């Protein structure tokens, strides 16, 4: 597993870097409005009523942004949790931990692609 992870490292780092930079930039506005302002009543929830939300998300740019909001934080998260595990003397279990985390990120990313395709 460790050997496979080393081979995949350029792809993993690409996704991690994109998650760290683009993921952070995209997620900030999303969390402020969808995660906090609408539930707290600071923004009218009708802004994200189904017809408008669906119209926004189902455009090609909307689908790309939604997929970015799903997949990029997952890969940033998976890689950072792996590195946290290594920091706490997890060098020996790194192959298994890293493999599981990337598998979870990969499965959720595929589910994200399916979710976006269904819009």
């Amino acid at each position, binding site marked *: 597993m460790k050997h496979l992870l080393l081979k995949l490292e350029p792809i993993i780092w690409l996704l991690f870097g994109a*998650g*760290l*930079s683009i*993921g*952070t*930039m*995209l*997620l*900030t*506005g*999303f*969390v*402020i*409005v*969808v*995660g*906090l302002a*609408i*539930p*707290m009543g600071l*923004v*009218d*929830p*009708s*802004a*994200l009523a*189904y017809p*408008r*939300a*669906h119209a*926004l*998300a189902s455009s090609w740019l909307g689908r790309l*942004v*939604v997929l970015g*909001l*799903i997949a*990029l*934080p*997952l890969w*940033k*998260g*998976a*890689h*950072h*949790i792996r*590195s*946290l595990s*290594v*920091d706490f*003397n997890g*060098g020996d279990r790194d192959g298994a931990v890293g493999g599981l985390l990337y598998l*979870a*990120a990969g499965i*959720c990313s595929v*589910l*994200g692609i399916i*979710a*976006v395709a*269904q*819009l």
Partner: protein
Amino acid sequence: MAGAAHPEAMAPPKKGPTRTAPPQMPESWWGAPRIRTYLLFGATGIVYFLAGTVVLKLAWALGTGPEAWDRALGDLSHPLYLVFHALTLVSLIFVGVRAFGTMMPKMQPRNGPLPVLAAGTVKGLIFGAWAALTVLLGLILAGKIFP
């Protein structure tokens, strides 16, 4: 004047794997601010991973239909979701300030075709892009643009 040292002068008699001590976390890590900040930066990965799954849940509900979407959006009013999203916002700002403000200005390629920009310029460009994208996405989601 002494001549240049032979490149193999310090090489061991037999070639072998580089001898390095395995990395170990010092036992007093919680008392070292730099290690603590570094670990907190890594721990934001847990929040990011969960945030990705929350967006996946929302996207899935949006594709399912109006009832599922209304239910998923309504779930976000639960106090646990509010606390989680407040924590996510703190994590995003922490990651952004550390990565965009401290790390990225130092990560410019030094020997590429592009000129190396001053750290302040890089910070300004990245923070500007972050702020612009946040405001734009926020206004669109809040219905102020493309109502």
